[in-house]
Protein backbone atom coordinates (compact mmCIF):
# COMPACT_ATOMS: atom_id res chain seq x y z
CA UNK A 1 0.00 0.00 0.00
CA UNK A 2 1.34 3.43 -0.97
CA UNK A 3 -0.18 6.53 0.55
CA UNK A 4 0.08 9.89 -1.17
CA UNK A 5 -0.88 13.40 -0.26
CA UNK A 6 -1.17 16.15 -2.89
CA UNK A 7 -1.02 19.75 -1.72
CA UNK A 8 -1.79 22.76 -3.84
CA UNK A 9 -3.97 25.81 -4.09
CA UNK A 10 -7.54 25.93 -5.35
CA UNK A 11 -7.60 26.20 -9.15
CA UNK A 12 -4.47 24.10 -9.79
CA UNK A 13 -6.51 20.96 -10.32
CA UNK A 14 -5.11 18.91 -7.46
CA UNK A 15 -8.32 16.94 -6.88
CA UNK A 16 -8.35 16.17 -10.60
CA UNK A 17 -4.68 15.15 -10.41
CA UNK A 18 -5.56 12.64 -7.68
CA UNK A 19 -8.30 11.19 -9.83
CA UNK A 20 -6.00 10.96 -12.88
CA UNK A 21 -3.36 9.13 -10.84
CA UNK A 22 -6.02 6.70 -9.58
CA UNK A 23 -7.14 6.10 -13.15
CA UNK A 24 -3.59 5.63 -14.37
CA UNK A 25 -2.74 2.82 -11.93
CA UNK A 26 -6.25 1.28 -11.85
CA UNK A 27 -6.98 1.13 -15.57
CA UNK A 28 -3.47 0.75 -17.02
CA UNK A 29 -1.44 -1.07 -14.37
CA UNK A 30 -3.99 -3.54 -12.98
CA UNK A 31 -3.75 -2.04 -9.50
CA UNK A 32 -6.33 -0.44 -7.22
CA UNK A 33 -6.59 3.11 -6.00
CA UNK A 34 -8.94 5.38 -4.16
CA UNK A 35 -8.94 9.14 -3.89
CA UNK A 36 -10.34 10.82 -0.82
CA UNK A 37 -10.50 14.50 -1.61
CA UNK A 38 -10.64 16.84 1.34
CA UNK A 39 -13.32 19.25 0.19
CA UNK A 40 -13.69 22.43 2.15
CA UNK A 41 -15.53 25.56 1.15
CA UNK A 42 -13.02 25.77 -1.74
CA UNK A 43 -12.11 28.90 -3.58
CA UNK A 44 -9.34 29.76 -5.98
CA UNK A 45 -6.10 30.56 -4.21
CA UNK A 46 -6.81 28.74 -0.91
CA UNK A 47 -4.66 25.76 0.16
CA UNK A 48 -6.23 22.39 -0.71
CA UNK A 49 -5.16 18.79 -0.40
CA UNK A 50 -6.25 15.38 -1.57
CA UNK A 51 -5.41 11.87 -0.33
CA UNK A 52 -4.73 8.91 -2.62
CA UNK A 53 -4.10 5.30 -1.62
CA UNK A 54 -2.65 2.78 -4.13
CA UNK A 55 -2.38 -0.97 -3.67
CA UNK A 56 -2.09 -4.25 -5.56
CA UNK A 57 -5.32 -5.37 -3.88
CA UNK A 58 -8.65 -3.56 -3.47
CA UNK A 59 -8.20 -0.71 -0.98
CA UNK A 60 -10.24 -1.18 2.19
CA UNK A 61 -9.28 2.01 4.01
CA UNK A 62 -11.65 4.88 3.32
CA UNK A 63 -10.02 7.69 5.22
CA UNK A 64 -7.61 10.55 4.70
CA UNK A 65 -3.87 9.88 4.48
CA UNK A 66 -2.02 10.81 7.69
CA UNK A 67 1.38 9.20 7.07
CA UNK A 68 2.18 9.84 3.40
CA UNK A 69 4.87 7.87 1.61
CA UNK A 70 4.85 10.51 -1.12
CA UNK A 71 4.01 14.20 -0.74
CA UNK A 72 3.38 16.25 -3.88
CA UNK A 73 3.43 20.04 -3.62
CA UNK A 74 2.20 21.90 -6.68
CA UNK A 75 2.58 25.38 -5.18
CA UNK A 76 5.64 25.89 -2.98
CA UNK A 77 4.10 29.03 -1.40
CA UNK A 78 1.64 26.97 0.66
CA UNK A 79 4.22 26.59 3.42
CA UNK A 80 3.83 30.34 3.94
CA UNK A 81 0.06 29.86 4.27
CA UNK A 82 0.15 27.76 7.40
CA UNK A 83 0.39 24.34 5.74
CA UNK A 84 2.91 21.86 7.16
CA UNK A 85 3.73 19.63 4.19
CA UNK A 86 5.89 17.39 6.40
CA UNK A 87 2.99 16.47 8.70
CA UNK A 88 3.01 12.73 9.37
CA UNK A 89 5.98 11.89 7.12
CA UNK A 90 8.38 9.05 7.96
CA UNK A 91 12.05 8.42 7.21
CA UNK A 92 11.39 7.06 3.71
CA UNK A 93 8.88 9.70 2.63
CA UNK A 94 9.55 11.39 -0.71
CA UNK A 95 8.72 14.93 -1.83
CA UNK A 96 7.73 15.96 -5.36
CA UNK A 97 8.00 19.72 -5.71
CA UNK A 98 7.01 22.27 -8.35
CA UNK A 99 10.09 24.48 -8.49
CA UNK A 100 13.56 24.85 -9.91
CA UNK A 101 14.31 27.88 -7.75
CA UNK A 102 17.36 27.29 -5.54
CA UNK A 103 15.95 29.44 -2.73
CA UNK A 104 12.71 27.49 -2.67
CA UNK A 105 14.59 24.18 -2.72
CA UNK A 106 16.65 25.40 0.23
CA UNK A 107 13.48 26.28 2.12
CA UNK A 108 12.18 22.74 1.58
CA UNK A 109 15.44 21.09 2.65
CA UNK A 110 14.55 21.81 6.28
CA UNK A 111 11.92 19.04 6.10
CA UNK A 112 13.24 15.52 6.57
CA UNK A 113 12.27 14.05 3.22
CA UNK A 114 14.46 11.20 2.07
CA UNK A 115 14.49 12.45 -1.52
CA UNK A 116 13.20 15.52 -3.33
CA UNK A 117 12.10 15.29 -6.98
CA UNK A 118 11.69 18.72 -8.51
CA UNK A 119 10.83 20.47 -11.75
CA UNK A 120 9.29 23.79 -12.79
CA UNK A 121 5.93 22.29 -13.64
CA UNK A 122 4.21 25.67 -14.01
CA UNK A 123 6.63 26.75 -16.76
CA UNK A 124 6.14 23.44 -18.56
CA UNK A 125 2.35 23.85 -18.27
CA UNK A 126 2.59 27.38 -19.72
CA UNK A 127 4.77 26.14 -22.61
CA UNK A 128 2.48 23.26 -23.50
CA UNK A 129 -1.07 24.22 -22.59
CA UNK A 130 -0.73 28.00 -22.47
CA UNK A 131 -1.98 28.12 -18.89
CA UNK A 132 -0.12 27.81 -15.61
CA UNK A 133 -2.21 24.90 -14.40
CA UNK A 134 0.43 22.38 -13.34
CA UNK A 135 -1.59 19.26 -12.51
CA UNK A 136 -0.65 17.35 -15.68
CA UNK A 137 3.03 18.27 -15.52
CA UNK A 138 3.17 17.46 -11.78
CA UNK A 139 1.91 13.97 -12.55
CA UNK A 140 4.80 13.67 -15.01
CA UNK A 141 7.16 14.62 -12.19
CA UNK A 142 5.47 12.04 -9.97
CA UNK A 143 6.07 9.38 -12.63
CA UNK A 144 9.79 10.16 -12.33
CA UNK A 145 9.69 8.64 -8.82
CA UNK A 146 8.66 5.32 -10.37
CA UNK A 147 5.35 5.02 -8.52
CA UNK A 148 3.43 5.15 -11.83
CA UNK A 149 4.48 4.72 -15.46
CA UNK A 150 4.54 7.86 -17.58
CA UNK A 151 2.64 5.97 -20.32
CA UNK A 152 -0.18 5.28 -17.87
CA UNK A 153 -0.26 8.93 -16.80
CA UNK A 154 -0.48 10.06 -20.44
CA UNK A 155 -3.33 7.66 -21.17
CA UNK A 156 -5.27 8.70 -18.06
CA UNK A 157 -4.78 12.40 -18.87
CA UNK A 158 -6.17 11.88 -22.38
CA UNK A 159 -9.27 10.16 -20.99
CA UNK A 160 -9.86 12.89 -18.41
CA UNK A 161 -9.27 15.95 -20.58
CA UNK A 162 -10.52 14.58 -23.91
CA UNK A 163 -8.55 14.31 -27.14
CA UNK A 164 -7.44 17.91 -27.78
CA UNK A 165 -6.68 19.23 -24.28
CA UNK A 166 -5.52 15.74 -23.35
CA UNK A 167 -2.76 15.77 -26.00
CA UNK A 168 -1.33 19.04 -24.66
CA UNK A 169 -1.53 18.01 -21.03
CA UNK A 170 -0.02 14.62 -21.79
CA UNK A 171 2.85 16.39 -23.58
CA UNK A 172 3.36 18.58 -20.50
CA UNK A 173 3.46 15.46 -18.33
CA UNK A 174 6.04 13.78 -20.60
CA UNK A 175 8.21 16.90 -20.69
CA UNK A 176 8.09 17.28 -16.90
CA UNK A 177 8.88 13.58 -16.52
CA UNK A 178 12.00 14.00 -18.66
CA UNK A 179 13.16 17.18 -16.92
CA UNK A 180 12.58 16.15 -13.30
CA UNK A 181 15.72 16.17 -11.17
CA UNK A 182 16.38 14.47 -7.90
CA UNK A 183 18.25 15.53 -4.79
Amino acid at each position, binding site marked *: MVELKFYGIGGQGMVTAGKIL*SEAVSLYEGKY*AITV*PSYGAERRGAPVNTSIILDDEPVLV*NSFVYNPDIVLVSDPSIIDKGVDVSEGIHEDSILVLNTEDEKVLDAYKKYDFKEIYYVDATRIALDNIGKGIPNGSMLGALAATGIVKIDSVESAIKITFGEKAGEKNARAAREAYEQTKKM
Partner: protein
Amino acid sequence: MAYKMLDGNGAAVEAIKMAKVQVISAYPITPQSTIAEQLSDLVATGELKAQYVRVESEHTALSVATAAELTGVRAATATASQGLALMHEVAGMTSGCRVPIVMPVVNRGLAAPWTLWADHGDAMSERDTGWLQFYCQNVQEVFDLTVMAYRIAEDENVLTPAMVCMDGFFLSHSMQKIDIPDQEAIDEFIGPFVTKNSYLDPEDPMFVCNLTGPDDFTEMRYQQKVGFDNSIKVIEKVQKEFAQKFGRKLQIIEGYRTDDADVVLVALGSMCGTAKYVVNKLREQGKKVGLAKVTVFRPFPFRQLREVLGGKEVIGVFDRSAGLGGQGGPLWSETCAAIKDYNSDIRHYVGGLGGRDVSVRTIEKIYNELLEIKNGTRKEHTEWIDVKENAMDIRQVLKNA
Protein backbone atom coordinates in the same frame (compact mmCIF):
# COMPACT_ATOMS: atom_id res chain seq x y z
CA MET B 1 -15.15 -7.35 -16.91
CA ALA B 2 -15.56 -3.72 -17.86
CA TYR B 3 -13.80 -1.63 -15.26
CA LYS B 4 -14.61 2.03 -14.90
CA MET B 5 -13.28 4.72 -12.62
CA LEU B 6 -16.23 6.37 -10.95
CA ASP B 7 -17.00 8.23 -7.78
CA GLY B 8 -20.04 7.30 -5.70
CA ASN B 9 -22.26 9.86 -7.39
CA GLY B 10 -21.14 8.61 -10.80
CA ALA B 11 -21.89 5.02 -9.80
CA ALA B 12 -25.40 6.00 -8.66
CA VAL B 13 -25.99 7.79 -11.98
CA GLU B 14 -24.78 4.75 -13.91
CA ALA B 15 -27.23 2.50 -12.03
CA ILE B 16 -30.15 4.92 -12.48
CA LYS B 17 -29.35 5.23 -16.19
CA MET B 18 -29.17 1.45 -16.63
CA ALA B 19 -32.51 1.07 -14.81
CA LYS B 20 -33.92 3.16 -17.70
CA VAL B 21 -35.86 5.64 -15.60
CA GLN B 22 -38.25 7.73 -17.68
CA VAL B 23 -38.80 10.72 -15.39
CA ILE B 24 -36.15 12.51 -13.34
CA SER B 25 -36.87 15.29 -10.92
CA ALA B 26 -33.93 16.35 -8.80
CA TYR B 27 -32.78 19.49 -7.04
CA PRO B 28 -29.01 19.87 -6.66
CA ILE B 29 -27.50 20.00 -3.19
CA THR B 30 -23.93 19.45 -2.01
CA PRO B 31 -22.64 16.69 -2.05
CA GLN B 32 -25.38 15.20 -4.24
CA SER B 33 -25.14 17.88 -6.98
CA THR B 34 -23.20 15.86 -9.54
CA ILE B 35 -25.97 13.23 -9.55
CA ALA B 36 -28.52 15.87 -10.56
CA GLU B 37 -26.08 17.38 -13.08
CA GLN B 38 -24.97 14.13 -14.70
CA LEU B 39 -28.55 12.86 -15.05
CA SER B 40 -29.46 16.16 -16.67
CA ASP B 41 -26.52 15.78 -19.09
CA LEU B 42 -27.62 12.26 -20.01
CA VAL B 43 -31.11 13.51 -20.84
CA ALA B 44 -29.75 16.51 -22.77
CA THR B 45 -27.49 14.32 -24.96
CA GLY B 46 -30.25 11.80 -25.51
CA GLU B 47 -28.24 8.96 -23.95
CA LEU B 48 -31.06 8.51 -21.47
CA LYS B 49 -34.55 8.79 -22.90
CA ALA B 50 -36.29 10.46 -19.99
CA GLN B 51 -38.06 13.65 -19.09
CA TYR B 52 -36.10 15.87 -16.71
CA VAL B 53 -38.40 18.05 -14.62
CA ARG B 54 -36.70 21.07 -13.09
CA VAL B 55 -38.19 21.92 -9.74
CA GLU B 56 -37.81 24.65 -7.13
CA SER B 57 -37.21 22.40 -4.12
CA GLU B 58 -36.67 18.87 -2.88
CA HIS B 59 -40.25 18.82 -1.61
CA THR B 60 -41.41 19.16 -5.20
CA ALA B 61 -38.66 16.89 -6.54
CA LEU B 62 -40.00 13.92 -4.60
CA SER B 63 -43.63 14.93 -5.23
CA VAL B 64 -43.01 14.93 -8.99
CA ALA B 65 -41.10 11.65 -8.92
CA THR B 66 -43.80 9.98 -6.81
CA ALA B 67 -46.66 11.18 -8.98
CA ALA B 68 -44.74 10.28 -12.14
CA GLU B 69 -44.11 6.74 -10.95
CA LEU B 70 -47.83 6.38 -10.20
CA THR B 71 -48.51 6.97 -13.89
CA GLY B 72 -46.58 3.79 -14.65
CA VAL B 73 -42.95 4.73 -15.28
CA ARG B 74 -39.79 4.31 -13.26
CA ALA B 75 -38.87 7.71 -11.80
CA ALA B 76 -35.75 9.01 -10.11
CA THR B 77 -34.59 11.64 -7.68
CA ALA B 78 -31.68 12.00 -5.26
CA THR B 79 -30.83 14.22 -2.35
CA ALA B 80 -28.82 14.91 0.81
CA SER B 81 -29.10 16.50 4.21
CA GLN B 82 -31.33 19.60 4.28
CA GLY B 83 -32.85 18.41 1.01
CA LEU B 84 -33.87 15.12 2.57
CA ALA B 85 -35.27 16.99 5.57
CA LEU B 86 -37.36 19.12 3.19
CA MET B 87 -38.61 15.90 1.56
CA HIS B 88 -39.76 14.54 4.91
CA GLU B 89 -43.43 15.33 4.40
CA VAL B 90 -43.46 13.73 0.96
CA ALA B 91 -41.36 10.73 2.03
CA GLY B 92 -44.31 9.32 3.96
CA MET B 93 -46.57 10.02 0.98
CA THR B 94 -44.30 7.98 -1.31
CA SER B 95 -44.09 5.03 1.06
CA GLY B 96 -47.75 5.18 2.14
CA CYS B 97 -48.89 5.15 -1.49
CA ARG B 98 -46.53 2.16 -1.94
CA VAL B 99 -44.54 3.88 -4.71
CA PRO B 100 -41.22 1.99 -4.95
CA ILE B 101 -38.87 4.84 -5.85
CA VAL B 102 -35.15 4.18 -5.48
CA MET B 103 -33.37 7.28 -4.19
CA PRO B 104 -29.66 7.81 -3.54
CA VAL B 105 -29.12 9.74 -0.31
CA VAL B 106 -25.67 11.29 -0.05
CA ASN B 107 -25.26 11.43 3.70
CA ARG B 108 -24.45 14.86 5.10
CA GLY B 109 -25.13 16.29 8.54
CA LEU B 110 -28.09 18.52 9.34
CA ALA B 111 -27.78 22.17 10.41
CA ALA B 112 -27.14 23.87 12.78
CA PRO B 113 -24.24 24.41 12.68
CA TRP B 114 -24.13 24.42 8.90
CA THR B 115 -22.14 21.53 7.45
CA LEU B 116 -21.56 19.99 4.04
CA TRP B 117 -19.89 16.80 5.23
CA ALA B 118 -20.60 13.15 6.01
CA ASP B 119 -22.90 12.24 8.90
CA HIS B 120 -25.83 9.81 9.02
CA GLY B 121 -28.08 12.24 10.88
CA ASP B 122 -30.02 13.07 7.71
CA ALA B 123 -31.00 9.49 6.82
CA MET B 124 -31.50 8.50 10.46
CA SER B 125 -34.08 11.29 10.82
CA GLU B 126 -36.08 9.51 8.09
CA ARG B 127 -35.70 5.99 9.43
CA ASP B 128 -39.36 5.59 10.39
CA THR B 129 -40.92 7.10 7.26
CA GLY B 130 -41.48 3.71 5.65
CA TRP B 131 -38.48 3.54 3.33
CA LEU B 132 -35.98 0.72 2.99
CA GLN B 133 -32.47 1.92 3.84
CA PHE B 134 -29.24 0.44 2.48
CA TYR B 135 -25.78 1.71 3.50
CA CYS B 136 -22.78 1.41 1.17
CA GLN B 137 -19.20 0.56 2.11
CA ASN B 138 -17.57 1.56 -1.17
CA VAL B 139 -18.33 2.84 -4.67
CA GLN B 140 -18.91 -0.65 -6.09
CA GLU B 141 -21.61 -1.16 -3.47
CA VAL B 142 -23.26 2.13 -4.47
CA PHE B 143 -23.76 0.69 -7.93
CA ASP B 144 -24.65 -2.84 -6.81
CA LEU B 145 -27.07 -1.83 -4.06
CA THR B 146 -28.81 0.70 -6.31
CA VAL B 147 -29.35 -1.96 -8.99
CA MET B 148 -30.61 -4.43 -6.37
CA ALA B 149 -32.81 -1.78 -4.77
CA TYR B 150 -35.01 -1.59 -7.88
CA ARG B 151 -35.69 -5.32 -7.71
CA ILE B 152 -36.36 -5.26 -3.98
CA ALA B 153 -38.45 -2.08 -3.80
CA GLU B 154 -40.59 -2.99 -6.81
CA ASP B 155 -41.25 -6.58 -5.74
CA GLU B 156 -45.02 -7.02 -5.43
CA ASN B 157 -44.65 -8.33 -1.89
CA VAL B 158 -42.58 -5.32 -0.84
CA LEU B 159 -43.72 -2.20 -2.79
CA THR B 160 -41.68 0.05 -0.55
CA PRO B 161 -39.35 2.89 -1.63
CA ALA B 162 -35.64 2.60 -0.94
CA MET B 163 -32.90 5.00 0.10
CA VAL B 164 -29.41 3.97 -0.99
CA CYS B 165 -27.20 5.81 1.49
CA MET B 166 -23.60 6.77 0.74
CA ASP B 167 -21.31 8.89 2.88
CA GLY B 168 -20.87 12.39 1.51
CA PHE B 169 -17.43 12.96 -0.05
CA PHE B 170 -15.94 9.75 1.43
CA LEU B 171 -18.00 7.90 -1.19
CA SER B 172 -19.81 10.49 -3.29
CA HIS B 173 -16.52 12.11 -4.36
CA SER B 174 -14.12 9.19 -3.91
CA MET B 175 -12.85 7.86 -7.23
CA GLN B 176 -12.65 4.07 -7.24
CA LYS B 177 -12.31 1.28 -9.78
CA ILE B 178 -15.59 -0.55 -10.22
CA ASP B 179 -17.06 -3.20 -12.46
CA ILE B 180 -20.10 -2.15 -14.51
CA PRO B 181 -22.01 -5.02 -16.16
CA ASP B 182 -23.39 -4.56 -19.68
CA GLN B 183 -26.85 -3.11 -20.26
CA GLU B 184 -28.31 -6.41 -21.42
CA ALA B 185 -27.43 -8.13 -18.15
CA ILE B 186 -28.91 -5.27 -16.14
CA ASP B 187 -32.09 -5.36 -18.27
CA GLU B 188 -32.46 -9.05 -17.52
CA PHE B 189 -31.85 -8.48 -13.83
CA ILE B 190 -34.10 -5.46 -13.19
CA GLY B 191 -36.73 -5.89 -15.88
CA PRO B 192 -39.24 -3.27 -17.03
CA PHE B 193 -41.31 -1.27 -14.55
CA VAL B 194 -44.73 -2.76 -13.87
CA THR B 195 -47.41 -0.82 -11.99
CA LYS B 196 -48.91 -2.66 -9.08
CA ASN B 197 -51.87 -1.49 -7.02
CA SER B 198 -52.51 2.30 -7.14
CA TYR B 199 -52.11 4.28 -10.36
CA LEU B 200 -52.78 7.69 -11.86
CA ASP B 201 -54.60 7.68 -15.19
CA PRO B 202 -56.73 10.61 -16.45
CA GLU B 203 -58.88 8.12 -18.44
CA ASP B 204 -59.60 6.14 -15.31
CA PRO B 205 -59.36 8.50 -12.30
CA MET B 206 -58.52 7.14 -8.89
CA PHE B 207 -58.34 8.94 -5.53
CA VAL B 208 -54.95 8.31 -3.93
CA CYS B 209 -54.24 9.30 -0.32
CA ASN B 210 -57.83 10.10 0.54
CA LEU B 211 -58.90 10.92 4.09
CA THR B 212 -58.79 7.65 5.99
CA GLY B 213 -60.56 7.24 9.31
CA PRO B 214 -59.56 5.18 12.33
CA ASP B 215 -61.42 2.22 10.86
CA ASP B 216 -58.86 1.74 8.03
CA PHE B 217 -55.68 3.64 8.96
CA THR B 218 -54.22 0.90 11.16
CA GLU B 219 -54.72 -1.65 8.41
CA MET B 220 -52.99 0.55 5.84
CA ARG B 221 -49.99 0.88 8.15
CA TYR B 222 -50.11 -2.86 8.80
CA GLN B 223 -49.86 -3.48 5.07
CA GLN B 224 -46.64 -1.46 5.03
CA LYS B 225 -45.31 -3.42 8.01
CA VAL B 226 -45.99 -6.66 6.14
CA GLY B 227 -44.14 -5.22 3.14
CA PHE B 228 -41.11 -4.67 5.37
CA ASP B 229 -41.43 -8.15 6.87
CA ASN B 230 -41.56 -9.65 3.37
CA SER B 231 -38.60 -7.60 2.18
CA ILE B 232 -35.98 -9.59 4.12
CA LYS B 233 -36.65 -12.74 2.08
CA VAL B 234 -36.76 -10.70 -1.11
CA ILE B 235 -33.43 -9.04 -0.28
CA GLU B 236 -31.86 -12.45 0.34
CA LYS B 237 -33.23 -13.77 -2.94
CA VAL B 238 -32.09 -10.72 -4.92
CA GLN B 239 -28.61 -10.78 -3.34
CA LYS B 240 -28.28 -14.45 -4.23
CA GLU B 241 -29.35 -13.88 -7.83
CA PHE B 242 -27.03 -10.90 -8.06
CA ALA B 243 -24.10 -12.99 -6.85
CA GLN B 244 -24.89 -15.71 -9.39
CA LYS B 245 -25.21 -13.27 -12.24
CA PHE B 246 -22.51 -10.72 -11.43
CA GLY B 247 -20.19 -12.59 -9.08
CA ARG B 248 -20.38 -10.17 -6.17
CA LYS B 249 -21.87 -11.35 -2.92
CA LEU B 250 -23.48 -8.85 -0.59
CA GLN B 251 -25.08 -9.73 2.69
CA ILE B 252 -27.76 -8.09 4.83
CA ILE B 253 -25.34 -8.29 7.76
CA GLU B 254 -21.76 -9.16 6.91
CA GLY B 255 -19.83 -10.81 9.71
CA TYR B 256 -16.20 -9.99 8.95
CA ARG B 257 -13.85 -12.32 10.88
CA THR B 258 -16.47 -12.54 13.62
CA ASP B 259 -16.61 -16.34 14.09
CA ASP B 260 -13.79 -16.56 16.63
CA ALA B 261 -13.73 -12.86 17.57
CA ASP B 262 -13.49 -11.84 21.23
CA VAL B 263 -15.00 -8.43 20.53
CA VAL B 264 -17.12 -7.20 17.63
CA LEU B 265 -17.85 -3.72 16.33
CA VAL B 266 -21.21 -2.99 14.64
CA ALA B 267 -21.03 -0.24 12.02
CA LEU B 268 -22.62 1.35 8.93
CA GLY B 269 -21.29 2.90 5.74
CA SER B 270 -17.84 3.77 4.43
CA MET B 271 -16.18 3.34 7.83
CA CYS B 272 -16.73 -0.43 7.42
CA GLY B 273 -13.89 -0.56 4.88
CA THR B 274 -11.52 1.14 7.27
CA ALA B 275 -12.77 -1.12 10.09
CA LYS B 276 -11.98 -4.23 8.00
CA TYR B 277 -8.47 -2.91 7.44
CA VAL B 278 -8.09 -2.41 11.21
CA VAL B 279 -9.48 -5.89 11.92
CA ASN B 280 -6.81 -7.40 9.65
CA LYS B 281 -4.10 -5.26 11.21
CA LEU B 282 -5.04 -6.17 14.80
CA ARG B 283 -5.43 -9.85 13.88
CA GLU B 284 -1.78 -9.78 12.80
CA GLN B 285 -1.00 -8.66 16.35
CA GLY B 286 -2.96 -11.65 17.69
CA LYS B 287 -5.98 -9.59 18.72
CA LYS B 288 -9.21 -11.40 17.92
CA VAL B 289 -11.52 -8.66 16.69
CA GLY B 290 -14.34 -8.67 14.14
CA LEU B 291 -16.81 -6.42 12.37
CA ALA B 292 -20.57 -6.71 11.89
CA LYS B 293 -21.28 -4.57 8.82
CA VAL B 294 -24.91 -3.52 8.63
CA THR B 295 -25.82 -3.12 4.96
CA VAL B 296 -29.57 -3.10 5.49
CA PHE B 297 -30.75 -0.77 8.27
CA ARG B 298 -34.43 -0.72 7.27
CA PRO B 299 -35.88 -3.24 7.74
CA PHE B 300 -33.62 -3.74 10.74
CA PRO B 301 -32.31 -7.29 10.23
CA PHE B 302 -32.37 -8.41 13.85
CA ARG B 303 -32.31 -12.15 13.10
CA GLN B 304 -29.18 -11.84 10.96
CA LEU B 305 -27.50 -9.60 13.53
CA ARG B 306 -28.35 -12.03 16.36
CA GLU B 307 -26.59 -14.77 14.44
CA VAL B 308 -23.39 -12.77 13.99
CA LEU B 309 -23.35 -11.47 17.58
CA GLY B 310 -24.28 -14.76 19.27
CA GLY B 311 -21.96 -15.58 22.19
CA LYS B 312 -20.04 -12.29 22.03
CA GLU B 313 -19.38 -10.89 25.48
CA VAL B 314 -18.32 -7.38 24.48
CA ILE B 315 -19.80 -5.51 21.54
CA GLY B 316 -19.21 -1.95 20.37
CA VAL B 317 -21.72 -0.06 18.22
CA PHE B 318 -20.57 2.95 16.19
CA ASP B 319 -23.21 5.57 15.38
CA ARG B 320 -22.29 8.24 12.84
CA SER B 321 -25.21 10.33 14.10
CA ALA B 322 -25.59 12.02 17.45
CA GLY B 323 -28.86 10.37 18.55
CA LEU B 324 -29.57 13.42 20.69
CA GLY B 325 -31.62 12.75 23.79
CA GLY B 326 -31.62 9.01 23.25
CA GLN B 327 -29.99 6.48 25.51
CA GLY B 328 -27.73 5.86 22.54
CA GLY B 329 -27.74 6.39 18.78
CA PRO B 330 -30.16 4.61 16.44
CA LEU B 331 -27.81 1.75 15.52
CA TRP B 332 -27.03 1.11 19.20
CA SER B 333 -30.71 1.11 20.19
CA GLU B 334 -31.57 -1.33 17.41
CA THR B 335 -28.64 -3.58 18.30
CA CYS B 336 -29.65 -3.62 21.97
CA ALA B 337 -33.24 -4.51 21.05
CA ALA B 338 -32.07 -7.24 18.66
CA ILE B 339 -30.01 -9.05 21.32
CA LYS B 340 -31.94 -8.04 24.45
CA ASP B 341 -31.85 -11.61 25.80
CA TYR B 342 -28.07 -11.98 25.26
CA ASN B 343 -25.72 -11.54 28.14
CA SER B 344 -23.53 -9.07 26.22
CA ASP B 345 -21.89 -5.84 27.32
CA ILE B 346 -22.90 -3.44 24.54
CA ARG B 347 -20.93 -0.20 24.36
CA HIS B 348 -22.12 2.83 22.45
CA TYR B 349 -19.76 4.99 20.39
CA VAL B 350 -20.55 8.23 18.57
CA GLY B 351 -18.14 9.72 16.04
CA GLY B 352 -17.43 10.84 12.50
CA LEU B 353 -19.95 13.67 12.76
CA GLY B 354 -20.09 16.51 10.22
CA GLY B 355 -17.31 14.97 8.11
CA ARG B 356 -14.83 14.17 10.89
CA ASP B 357 -12.67 11.42 9.45
CA VAL B 358 -13.21 7.98 10.98
CA SER B 359 -9.55 7.08 10.77
CA VAL B 360 -7.63 3.88 11.35
CA ARG B 361 -6.54 5.37 14.66
CA THR B 362 -10.12 6.05 15.81
CA ILE B 363 -11.24 2.49 15.08
CA GLU B 364 -8.09 1.01 16.65
CA LYS B 365 -8.82 2.98 19.79
CA ILE B 366 -12.33 1.50 19.94
CA TYR B 367 -11.14 -2.09 19.46
CA ASN B 368 -8.45 -1.67 22.09
CA GLU B 369 -10.98 -0.28 24.59
CA LEU B 370 -13.34 -3.18 23.87
CA LEU B 371 -10.52 -5.70 24.36
CA GLU B 372 -9.57 -4.09 27.67
CA ILE B 373 -13.21 -4.24 28.80
CA LYS B 374 -13.27 -7.92 27.80
CA ASN B 375 -10.06 -8.59 29.76
CA GLY B 376 -11.42 -6.74 32.78
CA THR B 377 -8.71 -4.07 32.74
CA ARG B 378 -11.13 -1.26 31.84
CA LYS B 379 -14.61 -0.32 32.96
CA GLU B 380 -15.53 2.96 31.22
CA HIS B 381 -15.39 3.52 27.47
CA THR B 382 -15.07 6.77 25.52
CA GLU B 383 -18.59 7.18 24.17
CA TRP B 384 -17.83 10.27 22.05
CA ILE B 385 -14.71 8.65 20.66
CA ASP B 386 -13.28 11.55 18.66
CA VAL B 387 -14.57 14.62 20.55
CA LYS B 388 -11.93 17.26 21.33
CA GLU B 389 -11.08 18.03 24.92
CA ASN B 390 -12.03 21.68 24.58
CA ALA B 391 -15.54 20.89 23.32
CA MET B 392 -17.28 22.99 25.96
CA ASP B 393 -15.10 26.04 25.35
CA ILE B 394 -15.46 26.54 21.63
CA ARG B 395 -17.70 29.31 20.30
CA GLN B 396 -18.58 30.51 23.74
CA VAL B 397 -20.34 33.86 23.40
CA LEU B 398 -18.44 35.93 25.95
CA LYS B 399 -20.97 38.76 25.99
CA ASN B 400 -23.55 36.48 27.59
CA ALA B 401 -21.18 34.30 29.60
